[in-house]
């Protein structure tokens, strides 16, 4: 199951009517959204959305039925057990010696971000970035971990020479085990235009 599917399942399974709906599905051979809604006293749209989502996830079987009026769907439970397993492996950094540590970076000129220094300490505690223009402008605050804060504290100024991520980490005395979170904040700030990368 991928993250998106897990999120859908988690969302619907957390509803207080979820168990009752599954009980109905287990009890009935097949059930329509209007039957389930009237049985549980929920809105038909609520029941419809739940059944559709479970069908999309492959737990139900959907059958189009024609009666006197317009056609509608009946749902049948296909499984007796649902398990949620999410593979986090792709989220881990690919290798410990990431080439991106050789990226040469510095703060961008007129970046417009606000860096707040931790009181009495040698690191940045958060960065505030403004996104958008005019009345649509919103503030985005990124709270930093200590290694990230130490790293940004030593980030070269806009008029200074570029330094590689690795050099800045060495200067800031950041432990190499924190490399992935350093690269993560560097990538984020590059994306927001706060950090510039040497060509």
């Amino acid at each position, binding site marked *: 199951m991928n993250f998106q599917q897990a999120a859908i399942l988690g969302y619907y399974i957390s509803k207080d009517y979820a168990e009752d709906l599954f009980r109905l599905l287990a009890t009935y051979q097949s059930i329509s959204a209007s039957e389930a809604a009237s049985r549980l006293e929920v809105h038909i749209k609520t029941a419809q959305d739940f059944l559709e989502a479970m069908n999309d996830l492959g737990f139900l079987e959907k059958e189009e039925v024609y009666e006197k009026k317009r056609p509608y769907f009946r749902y049948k439970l296909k499984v007796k057990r649902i398990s949620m397993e999410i593979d986090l492996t792709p989220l881990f950094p690919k290798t410990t010696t990431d080439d991106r540590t050789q990226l040469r970076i510095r703060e961008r000129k007129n970046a417009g971000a606000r860096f707040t220094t931790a009181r009495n300490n040698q690191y940045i505690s958060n960065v505030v970035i403004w996104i958008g223009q005019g009345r649509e402008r919103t503030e985005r605050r990124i709270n930093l971990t200590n290694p990230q804060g130490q790293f940004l*504290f030593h980030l*070269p100024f806009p*008029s200074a020479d570029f330094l590689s991520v690795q050099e800045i980490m060495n200067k800031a005395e950041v432990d190499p085990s924190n490399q992935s979170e350093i690269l993560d904040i560097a990538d984020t700030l590059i994306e927001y235009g706060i950090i510039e990368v040497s060509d």
Partner: protein
Amino acid sequence: MYYPNKLRSGTKFTALIPALIMLTLFAFAVVLFDIRGGLAVMFVSFTLFSVFSFFLYLRTHNSSFLAGSLMQLLFGLYFASVPRGIFPFPDERMAWFLYLCGIVIGVWMVILVVGKRKNKFKGREVFELAARATELSADGFTDRPRPAGKSTYTRDELMGFAEYIRRNLIALPYREEDRVVFVPIRMGDEYHFNFSPDSFRQGRTWIALDFHGNVTVSMSKSDYLAYKEELSFDQLCSNLGQLFIKFMEYYKKGEEERIVYQLNELKLSQWM
């Protein structure tokens, strides 16, 4: 040696404003009442100046302000005790004695102020020295503090250095949990500082020396824009930090006189 000034002209006559107000009030009081009213204005004004100077002395430990406070107090008493003053002494010679004391302390003041430039706030000199050998570079400003290097000193040396810097009006030290933050102060800033030392440091340039030897610099935008040219902000902050590291080295070697000498060598106007 001659160095072209890198800062914009910043002559401030704020120090003269209280004196001008006092003279105006004196003139009004004489016209509306009589000389007695005018002398009362002078007495009140000098007493207030004396209190102001005394507070500056307490905040900076600089002896020129104590001399100034004493002189202003004696002048105030003189104006109150002359025969037509509000509290005349039965013996006119007493008032003249106060006047004489005021003159003597005034001479001491002149020696301290003109000869030794003791009451000159030297923040401007600090910024000028930091700007030497700084290259031009546009759009370099950031409000992020910059690590400016490391130095070695003991906690006692740092506290002694802070006291020296304060007494010589180079910067105002603010003691924090594990560091001392130095805020350079310029002529004309003394009013804000004297009335509200805590709010004075907000949004200003500072140089912090912590108890582990780390030196950090943060330069305010207004101080950066005070330079005539767009200097490399990175170098400027670095130089400011290095300047204080050098000052600390002088202090540790017992050569602290060099600090004041270097600053006075720039020969900036007493009013800047």
